[in-house]
């Protein structure tokens, strides 16, 4: 049979294709459906958080940081409760990472703060002696891309029914509504309102001035995102 296949390239190719696609189906498909439901307490990203997530991706923070706490005592001691599938229901793309040059960040919002991030992102070794993380000073001047974040919100609401402007159940029994702008201007206003809360906790005068003037530097969006990781 194999000799025959080797003389008939078309059937050879079909054979190879069948063999390699079969396993893929079994590997990926069965667990698809039940892994995508959000757990209680998981809510969609706000406009500013999503813009911050884009800053995170743009700078490949995931090259050094994971967002996946494995179920080991040593990891839950260091990073908090182990991760659950449902917590990632609104993560497109997922950001689990594959290398921990720096620590896991899946729950960093629980134990680091706005002002700490501000110091750290500007110059990591100034807070953590011996840190090898690069500094990201340009984030303090680059503007966050709210337009794209808004476009993404619209897209995921439309194609994947992500519940914006809907009540989402929280762990304490209450509900929360994550708002999405009805127009672009509205989206900017929402993002700015969030940015003001972050900027209030920051020290950098240029950043504060920018936000006061209605501009959102990347660092503000990034911190909003990092604080949302809980």
């Amino acid at each position, binding site marked *: 049979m194999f000799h025959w296949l080797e003389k008939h390239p078309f059937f050879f190719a079909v054979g190879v294709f069948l063999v390699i696609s079969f396993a893929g189906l079994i590997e990926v498909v069965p667990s698809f459906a039940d892994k995508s439901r959000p757990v209680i307490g998981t809510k969609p990203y706000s406009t500013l958080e999503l813009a911050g997530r884009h800053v995170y991706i743009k700078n490949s923070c995931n090259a050094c940081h994971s967002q996946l706490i494995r*179920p*080991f*005592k040593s990891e839950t001691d*260091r990073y*908090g409760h182990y991760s659950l599938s449902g917590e990632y229901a609104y993560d497109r793309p997922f950001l689990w990472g594959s290398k921990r040059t720096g620590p896991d960040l899946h729950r960093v919002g629980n134990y*680091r703060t706005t*002002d*700490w991030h501000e110091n750290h992102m500007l110059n990591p070794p100034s*807070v953590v002696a011996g840190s090898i993380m690069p500094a990201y000073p340009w984030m303090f001047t680059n503007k966050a891309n709210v337009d794209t974040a808004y476009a993404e919100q619209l897209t995921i609401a439309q194609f994947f029914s992500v519940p914006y402007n809907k009540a989402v159940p929280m762990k304490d029994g209450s509900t929360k509504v994550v708002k999405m702008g009805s127009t672009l201007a509205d989206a900017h206003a929402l993002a700015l309102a969030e940015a003001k809360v972050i900027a209030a906790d920051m*020290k950098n005068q240029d950043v504060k001035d920018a936000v006061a003037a209605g501009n959102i530097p990347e660092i503000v969006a990034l911190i909003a995102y990092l604080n949302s990781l809980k």
Partner: protein
Amino acid sequence: MNKLYLAGIIAASLLLLGTYLSVGTSEGGLNGDIVNQLAVLGAVFIVLIAIFVVVKYVRQMQTDTADGKLADESWDGIGEYKNELPMGWAVAFFSLMVWGSWYMTLGYPVNAYSQIGEYNEDTVAHNEKFATKYSDISGDRLIEMGESVFLAECKVCHGINADGIDGKAANLNKRISVESVKHQVLNGSNNFLLGSEMAMPDRNGLFNMNSGELISDAEIDAVSAYVANGMSGAGADVFAGACASCHGDDGKGMEFVAPNIVAFTPELVANVVTYGKKGAIGRMPNLGDRLNAKQKEAVGAYITSLSK
């Protein structure tokens, strides 16, 4: 002995020695942790099998000769022998497939293993083991334990010497700085320092009983310096008039009323760790879920010991 075997043995020993040294001197170490032991065993296997196999095939290149029946075809001058499968390889492949089928169907079929279940067991075992070890430690041992918590959890913000890294977080070698006192007096304080919702009013609620008026800017400066200096220097009268009613004449605080502001106490530190704090410098996160009661007690004892 053949040079090749010698080289193989030397290479294996070097790699194993390297692994041994790195594990031995690595601060994690084998540590009685089964995962560590298996990982090292895996590393050892990689070295041994790889070297054994290389030696085997190089030997064959050195001493054996190629033979067998050639197939009729030849591609761009490349021929093919019709040799049988190498026995060891065929047997190993077959056995592994049998083993794999067994493993997935009978050994550990679909839901036979739960990593979360394993985690729960490990955690219970871990907690029991250590709870008995530290449940009744006190004094210097407690401080030592507190230091270990501090170095793992707190030093990223407060610095290895707890000096707050140039004002990026509170300097814990000293009870409080002028700026912080001033900030609290100007803005009040509502940080659960007593473990309950007991706020200190801001300057618009602080009367200086000596003058019968709201506390003034000059008085605030004076009293801030006085408190930050460990209750000495000018400003004692302001303190007596505006603050002592809550914080006590000596500033050591009163239960359920106001915290000690001349010295850290383990309770105060535990409350800061549990509820977080927002002040002149910035925000300290609440680390309540990350530490158990004993760890909080310990780190409290450690911080308290720093400024003694």
